[in-house]
């Protein structure tokens, strides 16, 4: 089956010293165990959780276990690197996460009656201007609204240095804090949205 795998630079495993070969089967030691052993990969909807410098398409084979956020297989083979996952897309996703964080802040501000402050955020045309405005907004409000305004600035800081996984986490955390009505798991919902955004942008299927 086709799936996707994020790796650190140089095809390094995300959490180990293992360097993945290209186009060569890697077999997990021993019996498949989602906790301990297996080849990890993900579907497009999981991408938001695993954002690392390199994105590869991976072919999986043998026994498979699907969990909530990943697929674990007996064997896997990197087939090709998705070069479209580049600095430009990372930048755009980072900016998207800043705007997504701001949307949660706006919703919170409106809920708490800070209409003027919500408008200020909504009217900011760019992520950079958003980051400037939230400083003033955070000083004028309190509680979760102030925190969410602060998160917008923080997401921008991460996005500016190309640390897209940080910006993405902040957006998910903002979703968790705002807790939109009618959403069971706002953190997961936000992550799923990030995954969808990326899958669409990179034209990934599966």
């Amino acid at each position, binding site marked *: 089956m086709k799936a996707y795998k994020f790796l650190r630079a140089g095809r390094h495993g995300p959490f180990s010293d293992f360097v993945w070969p290209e186009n060569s089967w890697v077999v997990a030691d021993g019996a498949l165990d*989602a*906790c301990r052993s297996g080849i990890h990969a993900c579907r497009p909807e999981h991408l938001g959780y*695993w954002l690392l410098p390199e994105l590869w398409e991976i072919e999986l084979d043998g026994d498979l276990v699907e*969990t*909530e*956020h990943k697929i674990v297989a007996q064997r896997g083979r990197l087939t090709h690197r998705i070069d479209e996952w580049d600095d430009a897309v990372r930048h755009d996703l980072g900016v998207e996460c800043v705007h997504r964080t701001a949307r949660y802040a706006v919703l919170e501000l409106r809920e708490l009656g800070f209409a003027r402050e919500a408008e200020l955020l909504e009217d900011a045309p760019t992520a950079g201007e958003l980051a400037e405005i939230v400083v003033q907004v955070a000083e004028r409000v309190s509680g979760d609204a102030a925190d969410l305004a602060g998160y917008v600035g923080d997401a921008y800081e991460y996005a500016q240095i190309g*640390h897209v996984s940080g910006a993405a986490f902040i957006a*998910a955390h903002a979703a968790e804090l705002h807790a939109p009505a009618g959403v069971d798991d706002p953190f*997961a919902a936000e992550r799923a949205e990030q995954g969808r955004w990326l899958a669409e942008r990179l034209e990934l299927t599966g």
Partner: protein
Amino acid sequence: MSHLDVRCSSIALLATEYLEDGLSERQRTSYETHLVYCDACVVFLDDIRELAARLRALPPDPVDAVERRAVLEAARR
């Protein structure tokens, strides 16, 4: 609160459990998704891994000749 919204303090507390494969699948996912975005925790975990490697490389004490003789004598008796 989502189990994936993990704080750095949890990462520190569970470092050995993680390195020793002692976490459940759910916990391991929480742990690893945190490591994706948190460089400080990656450094912390690397520190612990590196520490274990450094400890492994500690040299044993040299065998003291007097002590060696004493043990062999005692064994003879």
